[in-house]
C-alpha cells in the first residue's frame, strides 16, 4: 500500500518534475492472453503507470484492473472484474522491485535484464524474477517483457466447470516507454 502511495506521488506531475533520475510513464501498455482448450481470451490496457529510478536501479509498475478492455463479451469482462480479480477489493495489479543487471542509462543501447521484485495480483504477493528487454534511445526507456502469471499462485479461483475456458497460466505482455518529465 505504501508503495502505491509513493507511486501515485511520483507519477503525479507535481512531485516528479525535477528529479532527473526518475523516468516514468502513465500510459504503458499491457496485454494478457488466456489460451484454454475451449476459448482464447485476450484483453489489454494502456493505463500502466510506471517509474524507474535509474540511480537506484529500482522500478514500480501498476495497472488498474478495471482498465482492461477486450474480452469476448461484456459479460466476460464483468466476470473478470467481479469474480476472478475482485477489482473492487484489489483495484490494481503491481510489480515493484529492483533491476538486477547494471545498465548505463546515459547511453543509447539495448539490454536484456531481470527484474526482481514483488508481483501483487489479486492481493497476493509473489516474489518473481521476470526477464525483460530495455531499450534506451534519445533519453527514452522502452521496456518490453513477456511473462506468465499462474492463477494458483495468486489465489485466483476458477470454478472447475470453467476450467476448459480459462487457462491456469496467463501470458502477459508489457510494453512501456518511460521518459523524464
Amino acid at each position, binding site marked *: 500500500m505504501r508503495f502505491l502511495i509513493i507511486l501515485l506521488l511520483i507519477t503525479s506531475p507535481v512531485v516528479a518534475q525535477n528529479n532527473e533520475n526518475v523516468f516514468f510513464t502513465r500510459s504503458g501498455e499491457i496485454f494478457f492472453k488466456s489460451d484454454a482448450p475451449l476459448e482464447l481470451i485476450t484483453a489489454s490496457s494502456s493505463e500502466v503507470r510506471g517509474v524507474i529510478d535509474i540511480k537506484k536501479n529500482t522500478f514500480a509498475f501498476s495497472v488498474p484492473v478495471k482498465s482492461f478492455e477486450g474480452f469476448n463479451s461484456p459479460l466476460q469482462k464483468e466476470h473478470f472484474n467481479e469474480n476472478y480479480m475482485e477489482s473492487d477489493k484489489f483495484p490494481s495489479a503491481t510489480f515493484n522491485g*529492483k533491476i*538486477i*543487471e*547494471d545498465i548505463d542509462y546515459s547511453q543509447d543501447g539495448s539490454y536484456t535484464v*531481470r527484474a*526482481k521484485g514483488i508481483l501483487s495480483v489479486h492481493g497476493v504477493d509473489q516474489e518473481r*524474477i521476470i526477464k525483460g528487454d530495455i531499450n534506451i534511445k534519445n533519453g527514452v526507456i522502452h521496456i518490453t517483457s513477456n511473462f506468465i502469471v499462474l492463477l494458483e499462485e495468486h489465489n485466483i479461483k476458477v470454478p472447475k466447470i470453467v476450467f476448459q475456458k480459462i487457462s491456469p497460466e496467463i501470458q502477459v505482455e508489457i510494453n512501456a516507454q518511460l521518459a523524464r518529465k
Partner: protein
Amino acid sequence: MKKIYLLFLLVFFFLDISFSQDPFFKFYRVDKIDQNIRLNKLYQDKKGFIWIGTSNGLYKFDGLNFTNFPTDTTLQNNSVSAIYEDDLNNVWVGYSSGKIGVLKKDSVTVYNLPSAEIASPVTDIIQDSDGTLWISTYGEGIYLLNKNNETNKLTSENGLSDNYVYVLCKNSDNLIYAGTDRGISVCKLNNSIVNIKILTSSDGLPDNIVQEIVADASGNLWIGMQDAGVCFYEANSGEFRQSEVLKLWNYGSVTSIIVSHDELWIGTASNGIVDYEFEGDLRFRPFNRSTGHDFSRINDMLKNLEGNIFIASVSELIQSPGERLEFLRSFKNNSIDNVHAVLADKDRNLWYSTDEGLFYFIMTINKSSELKNYFPNKYHIISLYQDCHGRIWAGTYDKGVLILNPNTGEVKNLTEQDGIVNANILSISGFDCEVWLATLGGVSRVKIADKSKFEISSYNKAQGLANNYIYYAFIDSRHREWFATDGHGITLLENGKFTNFSSDAGLKSDVIYSITEDKKGNIWFSTSTEGIYKYDGNNFKNFALSEGLRDLSIAALSADKLGNIVIVHRKGIDLLNTETENITSLGVEAGITELNSDLNSITQDKKGNIWIGTQKGLIKYAGHLPNPNLKPITHINKVLLFLEEATNTSFTSKENHISIDFVGLWYSNPELVNYQYMLEGYTRDWVKTKDHFVTFSNLPPGNYTFRVRSAFGDNFTNASEKSITFKINKPFYATSWFIILTIIVIGAVSLFVIRYREIKLKEKENIEKEKIEFQFETLKSQVNPHFLFNSFNTLINIIEDDKNLAVEYVEKLSVFFRNIVKYRDKEVVSLVEELSLVENYLFLQQKRYGNNLKLCIQDNIDRKNYCIPPLTLQLLIENAIKHNAISRDKNLNIKIYQENGFIIVENNINIKKNVETSTGFGLQNIVTRYKLLNKREVKIDHTSEFFKVHLPLIHC
C-alpha cells in the same frame, strides 16, 4: 526429545530417457508420519554428524535415526534455514522467520540479538577469524554478532552489494564472500573493520544473482547463479572463468554446489542435480529425475567425511556415494545387458560388447547421445583391445580377431588361416605395437610392422607353455609376459624361457583368471576359488577371506592409479591397499546388489576410472580419487542414569544403573558397523555387539572407564575409540572420612564424659569442704563469746526487771541455738524456716539495742516456694550488727525484700569508731556456697550510704 526411527528407505533403479549414467541414490524421509516436512539445509558438524534444517525444526541424522530438536519457545515459524557450529562447538540455528537459536542439549533456545530484531529469513551463518558470527538474511543484509555480544549490520547503505544475501563463504582467514542479488560482496576483515568490494557483471561475473559460493581446496570459488549456471572465480587474479560448456547451461537456477575431485554436482531449483566434469571431458550429465521420488528442486547438498553426498530435495533426504561409483545401465530406454568385454579407448570413449554386437559410445558433450553398433548380432565378442594405430581389436569365440578402424570403418579379420594359434580369443593385451592374444589353444604374439602387416608367432604346449587354455596374457612393466592358465597355474615368459608356478610353488589353485601389477612391480593374480596372490619375485602371498576378501571367486583384477588392487567378484568390489594390505569394499551401500561379471571384463580409462562390464550394464569405479575416510568414527552420545540423561559423571552408591549411548558413524552402510566395548573396573575383555546402547545395572562403587570402538567385521585394529570415565561413590558409611569422623566424635564424647565426671566429683568435694568449713564457722559463731556475753548481760537486765520476759528470752535463745544446730547440715532451707530464725535472732538482739535496731521484712516475699542456704540471712544481719554502730542517733535499719528473683538484704551504714576485726569469712562463705550450688551469683552493692546483698532465690 523425539526420536524417529528410520522408517523410509528406498532404492530406485533407472528408467531413462536417453543415456543414464548415474550414481546410486538412497532416499530417506526424516519423519514418515509427517510427510509435509520440507528440507531446507544440510550441515555436518565437527564430529561428523549430519544436521538437517527443516520446516519442522532441526534434525540430527546418524545414519540410522533422525532425532528432532524442537525450539524451547513456541515459534510461529519453526522452519530452520541455516545451521552452523562455532569454534566453541555451539550449534547455531537460523530460522526463516529471522529468529536465531542455539542448541542446548535437547532443544534449541532462541537467542535474542542485542539491540536488533531480524524480520527476514536467515540464509546462512558463518564465523570469521575474530570469532564474530556473520548472519546473512534475505532482505536485511548481514548481521554481525561479535564475541562481546555486540551487533553490527552490513547493508547496502554501508557498502553491501544488496540486502538480499543468499550465501556466505569464507576462503581464507580474512575474506568473506557474500552472494547477493546484485553480485558478490567481498568483505575483507582488517582488525575488526570490514572493507567491502563489490564484484558484478562489470567485473566479469556472468550473472549478478549469486545464490551459491563454494571454495575449493586451493581457495578459489565456484559460484552458482540464478540464470547463468556456474562459473569459476580465481581468487588471486580476481578473474571469473566460465568454460564453453558451462556457457551452454540451461538447467535454471543453481541452489547448491558440491566440489569433488574433478567434477561438480550442481543442485538446481527445478532440474535436480547436474554433474559437471571440469577436468577432462567438460560435460554435463543431469542425473535422472525418476518416478516416485522428489528429485527436482534441490535445496542443499553436502559432502561428508566418507565422501558420501547428501542431498536435500524438498521432501526427501537423498544419500549417494557420489562420484566414486556410477552405473551405466541403459541407453535410450534399451538396457545394456550381458556385457562381455569393455574398453576405454585412448580418447576416453567407451567400447563394449554384448550379445548384440560391439557398441561404441562417445563420451564427449557434443556427441553425447551417439551410440554405434558395429557387427550387430554377428559375432560373439569376448575381448577388446586398442592397438598402437588406434584400431580396435575385438576377440571373438571361434572367429578370430576383428581389427576395426573406427575412422574408416575398415575391418580386418585375423583367423587361424593368418597364423594365430586359435580362433577363440579370451583376452587381448599388448605393449606398443606388439599384441598378445590369449586363446583356448595357446598364445599368439602379433607384431604390427605397419598398418596392414602383422608378424605372428605362437606358443602352446609344444613351445613350453604349461597349458593351452590361457585365460589372460599380461605384459608387465619389465616387458615380461605372464600367462594365466586353466589348471596349471601361472606361467612367466622371460627372455624366451617359460617358468611355471603352480601347486608345486604352493599355489592353492591352479586355475588362474587375471593378472595385474602394482606400482612396486609386484605381480598380483586371481584364482578361480582361492582368492588372490601377490608375487614379489620370491614368494607368493595369498589373500583370502581371513584377510578381508568377501569372495574367493574373483572375476577380474586391476591396479588403480593410487596403488590399490581393484578386485571384482559377485559381491561387489574389494579394494586392497598395496601399502597396508588392508581390504575395504564397495557393496550394497554403493548400490551393488549383485555383480555378475564376465572374466576380465574390465578396463581403465586415461583418467583412471575403472569400467567393469556386468550382466546388467557397466559400472564405473573412480579409481583415481583419493580415498576418503574409510572407517567408522566412534562417538559416545550420552551417559544415562536409570535411563535418564546424567548431568555429571560422579554418582552416589544408589545411582548404580548406568547406560551408555554410542554410535560408530558410518553413513555409507551403518548396518555394517560392529562395536566392541569394555568397562574398565568391571570387565576385563572386550564385548562385541551390534547395539548402540549398553546398560550396566547394580554397579558396585568404584572408578570406571567405559571404552568403545567401532569397525567393520572383526578387525578392530586401528579402530576409532572413545572413552568416558565415571565414578560410583561408596555409601557414606563406608567412606574413610566418615569412619575417621566417627572415631573422633566417639573419642571426644568419652573424653568429655570423663572430664565432666571429674569436674562433678571435684565440685561435690568442694561443697563438702565448704559445708564442713561453714559448719565449723557456725559452730564457732555459736560460741561467739561476744554474742553469748551480750546475751547474758541482756538476760541479767531482764531477769531483774521482768521475770517472764527473761524466761521468754532464754526460750528464744535456746530455740535459736537449736535451729542453728538443726539447719546447719542442710544444703538449703525454706524461707519460712530461715525467716523465723532471723526473727528469733532479731528478738534476741533487739533486747539489747531496743528500737535503735530495726528490721523490716517485706510481705511480698514468697516464703513457701523459695529456699536459701541455711543461716545466710542470719549471717548477713549478724554482720550488719557487727559492722555498724547502733545508737539512738544512729539507728540501724535492715530491710529484707524480694525483687526480680533475688532476696535482698539491705542496711544503712553507720561507721563504727573502733572497728571489730573481721575475717570477711561470713560473706565470702555465702558467695562460695551459691557458686557451688551452681546458681546465679550473689551480688553485693556497697556504697557509702548502704550495704546491699542480692541473694538469688532457689526454687525448693
